[in-house]
């Protein structure tokens, strides 16, 4: 427990991704099974304890600490687990050996509701302050130490020659404490044998198409297809050993998102693995990303939501069929099999992503510029560019060179005015590197700037220095780490912001939220008065949504 606590403690203060990786890899290398497997489960959100709830912990501490002093302390600290860890009185009497991680996990998972509080109190007595904090974080879930599941798996892979995708591939067939995983990662054992009928097959990804690529690549070698503006998924369905059908919907990174889309998952009756785009489709029309976003990141979903925002898959590729792995086969073969498979399946919520004719680069460029001319119906609005896939390429996890290219539509651009700047983190902590920008809007008292988004990348190191200098020299207000900078019609900094799309938002004062905004250019030449107006943004929304904001 103490080594796990030390790891969490270090992770919670470490802003650098590379250092977080190193800390975890070191821990996995030096810790033994099953503790390291349980630590991995905790870091990837794979552990839960039914009986450890905040109310129970509050009751425990109320038996030991004056309630008024506890409330004052909780107000100051702001985090329940941390307050309890700090305020817990040192246990009198003899030294009790602190528990180890496997003991905590095993005993607490088996404990009944009435046993859990006593168990936790006993451990809190035995642990030091960092240990108590880690224990409480562990048992209440949500470590919040800035580590994603993907990063934790990457740290396991870094033990030896594996890649994170290798871990992903076996991940869903395993459960804590992941027997054999670490030995394999260290190069000391065979890959863990799993009998998971529907493993995640790590996704093949594309490189952005660069202008020079067009000079050397022949379009005849590539299939072109639309890149849809949804989320990339993998639908894997197959019968388990017991003959029952196993269905799973994975995100691009291997997260199991089946729980959020039961309406779709329950209708999958086949034995195959599909690669495609998850979209919300109503009456045959693909809805905006905004509609899909309301269904993401949920563990459960209401009947109303499923009815109003029905999910569908637009298929790109076929990775397995009838128990056969197709990934070694060239795309040409897989595509033909996919077309035939979907024809036979005739599923109302799964369709084929059509190919785009690609006689030459000019034709592709035109298709990319104006997808509406090349694709029937209103779905063209949900196209975010083109994908080029080499006809003879096998399906290779990761981003292999020269196989797949993405040629996204040009981003939207808006000239906005810098309003607030905030310090960055880690290496950027001495720079004002997070920018809130706004555009003009008419109000009763004339034009005013209304914030429309935040950007914290897209600039060069040199530009960062220039903006940082501007922020320091033009600060008019400070709010903790945030500075308000001058933003008047004739004084201020205009930033050309590039973004991928716009959603209606009730959370933002402006009524809109940008997708993927970044700094494209600094317009030192432009006075703020000439920056864009909100109408320029509203024009990008469907008319009814824009009307609701106006």
């Amino acid at each position, binding site marked *: 427990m103490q080594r796990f606590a030390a790891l969490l403690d270090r992770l*919670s*203060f*470490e*802003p*650098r991704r590379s250092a977080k990786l190193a800390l975890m890899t070191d821990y996995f290398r030096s810790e033994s099974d099953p503790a390291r497997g349980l630590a991995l489960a905790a870091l990837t959100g794979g552990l839960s304890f039914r009986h450890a709830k905040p109310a129970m912990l509050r009751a425990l501490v109320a038996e030991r*600490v*004056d309630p*008024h*002093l*506890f409330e*004052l*302390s909780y107000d*100051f*600290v*702001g*985090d329940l687990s*941390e*307050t309890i860890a*700090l*305020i817990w009185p040192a246990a009198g009497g003899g030294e009790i050996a602190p528990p180890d991680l496997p003991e905590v996990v095993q005993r607490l998972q088996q404990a009944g509701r009435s046993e859990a509080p006593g168990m936790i109190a006993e451990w809190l007595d035995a642990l030091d302050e960092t240990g108590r904090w880690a224990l409480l974080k562990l048992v209440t879930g949500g470590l919040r130490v800035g580590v994603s599941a993907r990063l934790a798996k990457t740290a396991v892979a870094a033990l030896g020659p594996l890649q994170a995708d290798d871990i992903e591939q076996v991940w869903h067939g395993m459960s804590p404490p992941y027997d054999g995983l670490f030995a394999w990662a260290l190069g000391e054992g065979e890959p863990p044998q799993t009998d998971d009928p529907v493993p995640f097959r790590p996704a093949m990804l594309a490189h952005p198409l660069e202008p020079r690529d067009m000079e050397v690549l022949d379009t005849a070698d590539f299939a072109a297809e639309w890149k849809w503006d949804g989320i990339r998924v993998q639908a894997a369905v197959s019968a388990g050993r017991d003959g029952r059908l196993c269905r799973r919907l994975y995100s691009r990174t291997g997260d199991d998102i089946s729980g959020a889309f039961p309406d779709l998952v329950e209708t999958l009756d086949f034995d195959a693995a599909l690669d495609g785009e998850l979209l919300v489709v109503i009456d045959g029309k693909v809805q905006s990303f905004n509609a899909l976003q309301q269904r993401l990141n949920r563990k459960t979903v209401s009947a109303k939501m499923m009815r109003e925002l029905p999910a569908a898959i637009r298929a790109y590729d076929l990775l397995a069929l009838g128990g056969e792995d197709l990934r070694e086969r060239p795309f040409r073969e897989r595509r033909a099999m996919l077309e035939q498979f979907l024809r036979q399946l005739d599923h109302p919520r799964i369709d084929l992503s059509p190919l785009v004719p690609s006689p030459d680069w000019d034709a592709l460029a035109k298709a990319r510029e104006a997808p509406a001319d090349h694709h029937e119906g209103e779905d063209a609005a949900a196209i975010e560019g083109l994908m080029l896939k080499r006809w003879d390429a096998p399906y290779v996890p990761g981003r292999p060179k020269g196989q797949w290219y993405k040629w996204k539509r040009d981003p939207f651009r808006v000239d906005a005015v810098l309003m607030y700047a905030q*310090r960055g983190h880690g*290496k950027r*902590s*001495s720079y004002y590197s997070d920018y809130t920008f706004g555009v003009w809007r008419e109000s009763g008292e004339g034009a005013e700037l209304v914030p429309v988004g935040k950007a914290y990348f897209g600039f060069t190191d040199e530009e960062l*220095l220039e903006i940082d200098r501007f922020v320091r020299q033009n600060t008019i207000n400070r709010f*903790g*780490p945030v500075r308000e900078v001058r933003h008047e019609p004739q004084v201020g900094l205009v930033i050309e912001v590039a973004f991928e799309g716009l959603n209606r938002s009730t959370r933002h004062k402006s009524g809109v939220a940008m997708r993927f905004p970044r700094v494209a250019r600094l317009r030192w030449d432009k006075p703020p008065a000439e920056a864009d107006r909100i109408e320029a943004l509203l024009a990008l929304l469907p008319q009814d949504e824009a009307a609701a904001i106006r």
Partner: protein
Amino acid sequence: MREASPSAGTTGGDVLTLTAAGLYCPAGGFHIDPVRPVERALVTHGHADHARPGNGAVMASRETLDIMAIRYGEDFAGARQEAVPGEAVRIGDVSVSFHPAGHVLGSMQVKIETARGARVVVSGDYKRQPDPTCAPFEPLDCEVFVTEATFGLPVFRHPPVAEEIGKLLKSLSLFQGRTHLVGAYSLGKAQRVIAELRAAGYERTIYLHGALERLCSYYRAQGIALGSLEPVGQRAKELAGEIVLCPPGQLADRWARRFGDPVTAVASGWVRVRARARQRGAELPLVISDHADWDGLRETVAETGAGEIWVTHGAEEALVHWCRQQGLAARPLNLIGYGDEGDAAEPAGRVEAAETTAGIGSTT
């Protein structure tokens, strides 16, 4: 000051009252640590929130007078009087003596004894942990104890300093290629961190931000061994793997960029709370405080034997609550103008000046 003067009729109210400038002793005609200029001030220690320039006359320990002269110039007050620790001096109708508070070099508690024999002790800032750079806190019997409560919440229990210094040394051995930048207040904390590093056997040169140099020199002149110290000056990446001390405000400022990718440590009692540590940019929080922690405050209150406790600044509510539970008369004074552990109270002009000087050539 939100609350009216403590009511008269109590022992404490007979001796001390509150004015806009702070705690005032009418019978002696002096203020203690006034927040605005007054005719006659008794100053407990040299931190900028307690020791301010512009008073008519200042009485303080020799070290505190020296420190005020270093910070504000020789003309920091119209007249000065050295207080010899433990020696009673008559001022007006009361007798006054100064006694070590264990906070920083020269820090004192002020004891006032009336003609009728009532004793009031004003603690100033104090701590109970050992500190190789100053005299230890001296417990004093009294009827009224006026205490600070900067860390007056039960979540604040300062660990032994050696443990925290150990964390810094361990990080230094783990990240040998990175400068370890330690944010420490220029008066007291910086010298204590250095002295504790020496006590832990760290013998390499320690490098200083310009704002720390003069007070470190002063401590050494007072016979406190700090080992080999050098200004950072124009050095930058060549300090990889070394310890550099700077005021906390410099950690996340342009001056720090010269070190590339330093490990930033913050030496402060506040960093015991994670959110506070992160706010201060601490990747390596070192819980080293020059104030009494919750246990230290309670222990001290009990040791004085006082039946009446006034709490000047900090987390007054919790300490007052605890005192009342013990059957002690306690009242919060909610004094405004005293900072958190001095961090916020670094004399602004000098830090800015240091930043500007250091900033030249640091943007490359």
